[in-house]
Each structure stands twice: as C-alpha cells, then as structure tokens.
C-alpha cells in the first residue's frame, strides 16, 4: 500500500492480482450476477486506490477492509434491487436465472469433464439456494463457508458481534439444507 501511495504503478497491478479474484468471487456469490459482481469489484478496488494515501499499516488488513467494502456494496445493490422488484417471487426467479445463465467456470479444467459438470451443477444449485436467503444471512454464509473466514473476521467485516454471525450462519445452513438436500439424488449425492 505504501508503494501504491508513492505512485508505483506496479504496486497497483500486484494488489489487483492478489485481491481482485477474492472480491469478484465474494460479490458474485452474494449478488448472483456476473456483470454486477464485476461492477462491485471495480468500485471496491477504486476505493482501495483512493484509500492508499491515508492507509495506516497495522490498523487493518487489506483483505479484511476489502471484504467489508465489498459486502457493503453488495448489500446496497441488493437493497436497491429489492426496491426495484415488485414481487419477491420475481426477484428469486431473476437471481436463480442469473446464476444458471452466467455462472463461473471451474478453476481446474484438468479434472474429468463429468466431475466438472457435476460440480458445476452442485455449485449452481447452491448459488440458487443462496439467492433465496435473507441478504445478511447470505453474506454471512458466503464469507463463512465459501470464503472460509473465521467468525470473528466476519463479525469485523459485517460490523456485528460474533454471536450474531453464528446465528446468521446456522440459520443460513438450515435454510440451505432444507432447499438442497431434496436434490441430493439428481446431483449425484444420493
């Protein structure tokens, strides 16, 4: 960050390479829309560039700071989206369709095609089920089970207590289980 603040153009490239994939993945999982996730990623990174001059080392980790900005930007978009939607069922339909239509590609193309397809189906089913969760629940589950952050880290990112995070994630897991476990057979988990 200090090198970035000193105007080193290579520092920006390195920071982007290091943090951008995580920001994009988090925003995609919370929003369920690739184009919107890209916009959020660009905005979060822009805020990081602007922050570089005032960055105090040791006060916050860049990754934690970025997760917080990303989560807040996603929450803003979800709120805006809800205002625009006239019916809840419409919103669920759109989000589920978004996950199905422009979902991410598997990272490791070296695995057998059948396994990749099965994993892509499971991932799509999970993302569709995630889209049905309440916003904060969805964010907490994403950060806990997909980004694999600790509860205290999530509490810091979401500016809440560890107990609240535990409650959000366990509620989210219950809701996901209720939606997904009926599809075990068709997704090769029977």
């Amino acid at each position, binding site marked *: 960050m200090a090198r970035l603040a000193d105007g080193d153009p290579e520092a920006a490239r390195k920071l982007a390479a290091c943090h*951008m994939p995580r920001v994009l993945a988090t925003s995609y999982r919370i929003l369920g829309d690739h184009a919107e996730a890209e916009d959020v990623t660009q905005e979060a990174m822009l805020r990081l560039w602007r922050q570089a001059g005032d960055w105090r080392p040791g006060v916050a980790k860049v990754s934690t700071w970025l997760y917080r900005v990303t989560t807040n930007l996603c929450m803003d978009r979800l709120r805006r989206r809800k205002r625009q939607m006239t019916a809840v069922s419409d919103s669920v339909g759109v989000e589920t369709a978004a996950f199905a239509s422009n979902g991410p590609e598997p990272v490791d193309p070296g695995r057998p095609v059948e396994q990749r397809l099965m994993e892509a189906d499971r991932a799509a089913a999970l993302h569709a089920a995630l889209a049905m969760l309440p916003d904060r629940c969805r964010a907490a589950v994403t950060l806990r089970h997909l980004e694999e952050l600790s509860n205290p880290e999530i509490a810091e990112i979401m500016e809440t207590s560890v107990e609240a995070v535990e409650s959000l994630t366990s509620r989210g897991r219950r809701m996901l289980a209720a939606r997904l476990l009926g599809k075990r057979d068709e997704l090769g988990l029977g």
Partner: protein
Amino acid sequence: MAQGENRDDSEQSLELFFTAARETNPVPERRLLERVIADANRVQARVRRSRRSEANPKPVTGSRFVESLRETLGGWIIAGALAASACAGIVVGFAGPGFIADLQSKVFAADDSEFIEFLAVPSIEEFFPEDVS
C-alpha cells in the same frame, strides 16, 4: 441417535455443495483487470499532480491574491461585514464620541424616545461620564 446420524449426513452433503461452489470460482477477465488498473493509474496521476502543486506552490499574485484573501476571510459576505465595521471604527475614531450622540438624536427623533427607553438603548453619555471634549 437416528436423528443425529441424519444431521451428520445432511451436514456432510451440504459440505459437498460448499466444496463444489469453492471449486468454481469466477475468474476475473482481462478487460476487468484493465478497467481496474486504469482506475489506479487515474488516481495515482491525480495524487502526483496534487503533490507537485503542493511542492511548487504558485506565487500569490493578482486575482490569486484576491482569491486567497477571500478564502482566508471566509467568503465575500464576511469580508464585506469586516470592511464595513472597519470603516465605522475609523469614522468614530475621527469624529469623536459627540458624533454618535448627534447621530443618535438625528436618527431617533424625539417621538421615538419612549421606544428607545423600551429597548433600553443606553445613551452614549453613560459610557463617557466625564466631558472628554
């Protein structure tokens, strides 16, 4: 017991969904990286410009002098009020306290004296008990 086993089973299945989702991360496309780096370059260029102007401040001349004076004083309205009070001070300084008494009697006609008393506006003589002239 059976309920516990069911819960373990469903937890395991859920974990397989999470694993599959973790394996399918979206990969940032080149054009997104280019947009992000372009933003960084713009911000850095702006920072460099402001640092240069801080390091080499332009001499304060002409309209820049007026502008910086205006900024220091806090705007034209405050600057105007300040100038008016300064002028009033100079006038009182030259004319002496008798001028104020004259002015008071001219501005507030005899009919208004009750109103002045009502407002409890003190006479200027109260501030100057001795004849200073």
